């Protein structure tokens, strides 16, 4: 019977951890001992068998099934990924949200009565009066109040969230605007901005 030590050397060899001297001993022994050579070959064959069956693929949909079983993702992450994937849309919607927000807040904040300051304008409670026979120069804007025009306004008249009475003797040289709804208000803002911008361009040549 061969020494147990030879079996140990075989395992060292199979673990690829054998020293050159041990390998020499093993080879010499195997050449002289048929039994040990057979065992050694059987071991190598066994390993080859085990290795030969070692390729397996996970079933179809494996990954999808795992993901379906995970606890719910935090919404924050979903948002972040959406923003990453659609940067333009994200920027556009952010712009829209801020824009709408600021418009609504100005609409809601401006609940107080106010009027442009001009000579000859008479204010009684929440009513602004352009008295008979008087002439008001420039644009008149009234917020959250009434406007009675009995005289003349040389300019535009705008009434926001209020009413205006134009007496038969009253006269307005420019445009008359009444703004009562949120969308009118937005429209009014857009018109005003455009008008201002146009005026800046129109005024430029004069400043030169």
């Amino acid at each position, binding site marked *: 019977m061969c020494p147990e030590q030879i079996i140990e050397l075989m*395992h060292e060899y*199979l*673990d690829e951890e054998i020293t050159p001297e041990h390998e020499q001993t093993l080879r010499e022994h195997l050449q002289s001992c048929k039994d040990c050579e057979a*065992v050694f070959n*059987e*071991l190598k*064959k*066994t*390993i080859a*068998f*085990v*290795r*030969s*069956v*070692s*390729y*397996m*693929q*996970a*079933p179809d949909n*494996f*990954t999808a*099934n*795992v*993901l379906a*079983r*995970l*606890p719910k*993702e*935090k919404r*924050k*992450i979903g948002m972040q*990924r959406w923003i990453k994937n659609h940067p333009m849309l994200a920027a556009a919607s952010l712009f829209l949200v801020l824009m709408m927000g600021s418009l609504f807040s100005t609409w809601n904040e401006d609940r107080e009565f106010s009027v442009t300051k001009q000579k000859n304008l008479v204010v009684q409670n929440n009513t602004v009066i352009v008295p008979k026979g008087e002439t008001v120069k420039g644009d008149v804007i009234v917020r959250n109040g009434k406007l009675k025009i009995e005289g003349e306004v040389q300019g535009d008249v705008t009434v926001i969230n209020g009413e205006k009475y134009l007496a038969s003797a009253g006269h307005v040289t420019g445009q008359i605007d009444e703004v009562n709804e949120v969308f009118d208000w937005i429209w009014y803002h857009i018109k005003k901005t455009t008008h201002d911008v146009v005026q800046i361009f129109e005024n430029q040549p004069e400043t030169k």
Partner: protein
Amino acid sequence: MDAIVKKRIKQVIKGDQDAFGEIVELYKNSIYQLCFRMLGNRHEAEDIAQEAFIRAFVNIKSFNQDLKFSTWLFRIATNLCIDRMRKKKPDHYLDAEVAGTDGLTMYSQIPSNTPLPETELESLELQETVQNEILKLPDKYRSAIVLKYMEELSLNEISEILELPLGTVKTRIHRGREALRQQLRYV
């Protein structure tokens, strides 16, 4: 590849499930194979392999990022398999062949009127024999042999996965090899 895995893990820690999907894709075949070789049943293997990934996801914050992710994942899967094996009756695997339904590669469920080429049939029989002999190994030898020869992992990695000293891992592989040799020598 390790760099990609590390990056994905950072995303997973933040809660990104898509990044985890990529990790599953990378390791699904090895983890599924490990479970199948340990349990011998496709349904159980799929169930436990999925469970391993889910545990990895849930516990990702406790993963030490200095370690190899695959080592940690293999450890989770191996432990789940061993738990499952201990709950089963010892020779439950005998009827596992019936339960593994679409097992063309493993269980020759070939209609008898369509003869396969002889070599293919032999290779199917060999696969079946090898798998059955592996399933007969005691679980501590089985895990070591599967990790070594089917997952092709180094002895050091196996020792980290099983959380055992290197010497113990070697002894288990030696005994496993010897047991398999006894069974497969006349094949």
